[in-house]
């Protein structure tokens, strides 16, 4: 639980004709972390890899086409399949997609056309509305012998330009109404200028109102016919939508299945392009948990007996790149998530998840001590963890974190004697933070000292595991740092009259020894670990820098410790905020009034939500910056087993400079 699982490097030599099945098996095993490699045959194009690259390109395009059809049929991707789908060749997938595109095309095209027709008919009605009272047949206006008349719509910005262009032509342009960026206009002129007027109107984007045959007559007759046409078009739209819904229902599974098959095929092709290809074989490199090695051998053995598997023990130079597979029980997954948000533990590093699981709820509970608030969080956390809230089922792991925080907050609530902000209902088993502020602040500092010391011990353990003995002994978070820190705490405690069973001179001596160790930490570390030169930038520079570094370490330890005072401050603030709720409630009415209780309930909800969030953030801050900085570097490689069902956004070319 404290260290990532042991890993073995695996090299597989796969015959060319077995590459697909073997890759599928590797992905299905769920244990193989693939390392894409640069081709060994640099400069020599590999026929095999080139073909897979072509597959990759084609499959990306096909995936896009499927997604377009799905979008048009309003089908979402659905969840990834439970078992990896079978691989599909691009040309086979393309045939399938073409058929689906063809099938979907007609109803979608009809629907779009009907919608456009509806817009057009509505536009006609709007254009005719200003002349609805005119008792003239519209057809007659077009066929006038001496007068040219054009009714239509034009972008407002073009009206002035049209007038300007017709400056020398006898005509009148009348704007009847504005609607958005368009205007309904009527252009009058002489029939003898019809050609000029038509060309001018067209070039100004004056779209003439040319009503279809069904909508002739006077404007009011045309409007009535248009309204009927609008109704008919709406009915058609409903029919097309039903047809699309039917198609959607019929094809949803097929499209989703095809999409995931294409994606899996793309993932497979993409993976193979990361293999080394020789004349008839592929060389594949990756990492497998040592304990799972037999499983991998069995899996591959079932697929082919021609695949050669070579197991290589991790070498010193590999350590940095070995993926770290954390092995925490499911209950700690939420805390693991918080750790990996900060950084991925390295392969040789201790996993901070257990210490996080211990300290996070403790720190949170100390700041949020209230039986009622704690129980609400506990309940909410249990609901989340039990996936009882379907919309938040993805946060189940985080539910455990909330539940534990709520549980510890409840315990502190018992100690503080606080229930939903009521401070006088229960007797405090320990003390009330609001009544003894110094005590809670000192307690917070004491907890901080314990946590920081634990961090330093963790750091020493990390150094011991990786056999960095110089770091173990002399690092400012190592043994020298710990001795220095505790000596200073002892001296500080004695100054304030705390009885310490160690004589002052001993504490001074240990502080000096620790201080010397820290001042010359780099020198000693290099000496112990036999690294040369001992002084990288000369002795003079080193001594000058060492003094400042000691000073910085001193300040750092002091500020880190004081940083934990906030735990006490928040415990006080929690009580104070609850008090404010009651003051507001009392201003609304007395305890027998409904208003009083509404304010108390809303106020408590506010405290749980708002202050809970702030305390959560502060806890995270203390964990990340004060504790983790003592021992955790977080620069490891996450263990990502090969999978042919990629997560969204995992694959696909991103355009940067078009390369």
């Amino acid at each position, binding site marked *: 639980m404290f260290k990532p699982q042991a890993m073995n490097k695996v090299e597989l030599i796969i015959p060319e004709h077995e590459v697909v099945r073997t890759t599928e098996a590797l992905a299905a095993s769920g244990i193989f972390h693939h390392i894409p490699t640069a081709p060994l045959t640099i400069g020599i194009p590999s026929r095999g890899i080139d073909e897979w690259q072509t597959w990759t390109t084609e499959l990306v395009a096909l995936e896009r086409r499927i997604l377009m059809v799905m979008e048009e049929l309003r089908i979402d991707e659905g969840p990834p399949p439970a078992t990896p789908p079978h691989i599909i060749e691009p040309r086979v997938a393309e045939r399938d997609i073409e058929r689906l595109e063809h099938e979907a095309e007609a109803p979608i095209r009809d629907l779009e056309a009907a919608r456009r027709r509806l817009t057009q008919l509505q536009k006609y009605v709007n254009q005719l509305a200003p002349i609805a009272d005119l008792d003239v047949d519209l057809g007659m206006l077009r066929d006038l012998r001496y007068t040219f008349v054009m009714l239509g719509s034009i972008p407002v910005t073009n009206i002035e330009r049209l007038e300007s262009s017709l400056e020398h032509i006898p005509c009148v342009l009348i704007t009847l109404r504005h609607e958005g960026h368009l205007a309904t206009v009527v252009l009058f002129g002489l029939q003898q200028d019809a050609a000029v007027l038509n060309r001018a109107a067209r*070039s100004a984007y004056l779209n003439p109102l040319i009503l279809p045959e069904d909508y002739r007559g006077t404007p009011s007759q045309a409007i009535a016919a248009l309204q009927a046409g609008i109704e008919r078009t709406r009915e058609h739209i409903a029919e097309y939508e039903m047809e699309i819904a039917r198609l959607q229902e019929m094809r949803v599974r097929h499209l989703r299945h095809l999409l995931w098959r294409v994606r899996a095929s793309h993932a497979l092709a993409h993976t193979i392009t990361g293999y080394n290809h020789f004349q008839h074989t592929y060389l594949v490199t990756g990492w497998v948990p040592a304990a799972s090695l037999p499983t991998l051998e069995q899996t591959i053995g079932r697929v082919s007996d021609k695949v050669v598997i070579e197991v290589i023990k991790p070498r010193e130079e590999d350590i940095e790149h070995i993926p770290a597979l954390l092995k925490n029980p499911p209950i700690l997954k939420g805390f693991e998530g918080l750790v990996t948000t900060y950084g991925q533990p390295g392969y040789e590093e201790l996993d901070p998840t257990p210490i996080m699981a211990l300290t996070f709820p403790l720190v949170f509970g100390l700041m949020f001590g209230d039986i009622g608030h704690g129980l609400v969080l506990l309940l909410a956390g249990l609901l989340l963890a039990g996936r009882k809230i379907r919309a938040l089922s993805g946060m189940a792991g985080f539910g455990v974190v909330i539940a534990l925080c709520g549980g510890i907050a409840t315990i502190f609530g018992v100690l503080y004697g606080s229930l939903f902000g009521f401070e006088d209902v229960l007797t405090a088993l320990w003390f009330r933070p609001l009544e003894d502020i110094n005590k809670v602040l000192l307690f917070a500092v004491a907890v901080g000292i314990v946590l920081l010391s634990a961090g330093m011990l963790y750091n020493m353990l990390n150094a011991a595991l990786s056999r960095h003995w110089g770091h173990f002994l002399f690092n400012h978070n190592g043994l020298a740092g710990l001795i220095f820190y505790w000596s200073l705490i002892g001296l500080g405690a004695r100054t304030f009259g705390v009885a310490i069973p160690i004589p002052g001179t001993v504490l001074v001596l240990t502080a000096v020894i620790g201080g010397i160790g820290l001042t010359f930490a780099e020198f000693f570390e290099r000496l112990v670990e036999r690294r040369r030169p001992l002084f990288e930038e000369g002795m003079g520079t080193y001594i000058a820098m060492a003094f400042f570094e000691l000073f910085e370490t001193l300040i750092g330890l002091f500020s880190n410790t004081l940083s934990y005072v906030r735990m006490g401050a928040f415990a006080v603030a929690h009580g104070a905020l609850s008090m404010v709720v009651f003051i507001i409630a009392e201003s609304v009415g007395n305890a027998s009034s409904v208003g009083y209780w509404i304010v108390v309930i809303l106020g408590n909800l506010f405290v749980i939500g708002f202050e809970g969030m702030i305390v959560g953030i502060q806890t995270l801050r203390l964990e990340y910056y004060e504790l983790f900085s003592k021992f955790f570097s977080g620069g490891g490689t996450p263990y990502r087993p090969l999978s042919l069902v990629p997560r969204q956004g995992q694959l696909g070319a991103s355009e940067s400079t078009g390369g």
Partner: protein
Amino acid sequence: MIRTNVTAYAQVNATTRALYANLLTPDVWHALIQAANFDALLTLLDKTAYSPFLKLDRQLLTPRRTVYQLRWHLTHDYEKLIRLTPEPACQLILQLWRLYEVDNLKATLRGVETGASWDEVRRLLSPMVRYITVNNETIQRMLASGSVVRAIERLRHTPYYETLIHALTRYEMEKNLFPLEVALDLDYRRGLWEAIQSLKGTDRDQALRLVGTSIDVDNLLWAMRYRLYHHLSVQEIINYTMPFGYQVRDEHIRALAEGADMVTIVKRIYPHIEGLDDTGPQSREEPPSPQRQLALIERALHRHIIRLCHKSFLGDPFHVGVQVAYLMLLEYELRDLTAIVEAKAAQLPSEKLTAILESEWW
């Protein structure tokens, strides 16, 4: 005001000047023009500011792909200057950037009409990643839609939709992309003009001087081309040109539309402009054809803009004119580089090249 501009433009001005120093020098131009072949040209370009964008396998660098890669330089600099330029001047740079989006849309519509695939079209587009309203996904959907009408539907919720949907009536009647393209062009320049009008003080003056002149030049050239090549009526030419501009007025457009001499009109607007006369071998024997005359006018007007851009780097530097000038110069540089790439790919002799290039810094 001056102090405000100094603070606001300090960083972007320093950046722009650094970028300006990266424009190709006369020596480099000379070397590019004299390059023995396309491969030698690529080797030379690899030593310029375009180098980071040409880090591809040489086999992939076809002439078309090379031009596409070169345009990444413009994309890179536009994005940088948009990020650094203070408001409201930034809106002008954004609007200038939108020209490439408009051009991409026009290319896409052409692709839709000819049934081209995304792979056929993508390298013809200007690369655009940020500060855009139409992304590659939308363009792919347009191309997959199968018809211009449906492609325009894919632009719903973009600033181009209303313009195109209204112009679509004409497209459906004429089955020609011309009305759609003109509508896009006019709408884009209207937006550009509005962006200039929203500026104040030196920013506005400089924007008018550079972008305003550029709009004027477009207006004049459009009017001349409509008359010469499309044989449009006076009214059509007026409607297809812009009612605004810096020095060009309606009377100039009307005169051109009515058939006035092109050189006379240009000289009336720009009395000191050079290069309108033909210096070719046959120039003394017979007057140039109208088409040749138009080509000469076009080059002279573009060179006029290039000179204005270079002048922007003299005097008070704390205004948007410096950024606009640099970006316009880079665009002209790219046009010339495109011509050189295509000429080298077609094995055109070097001496014929200088005649078709916009700039004159060699």
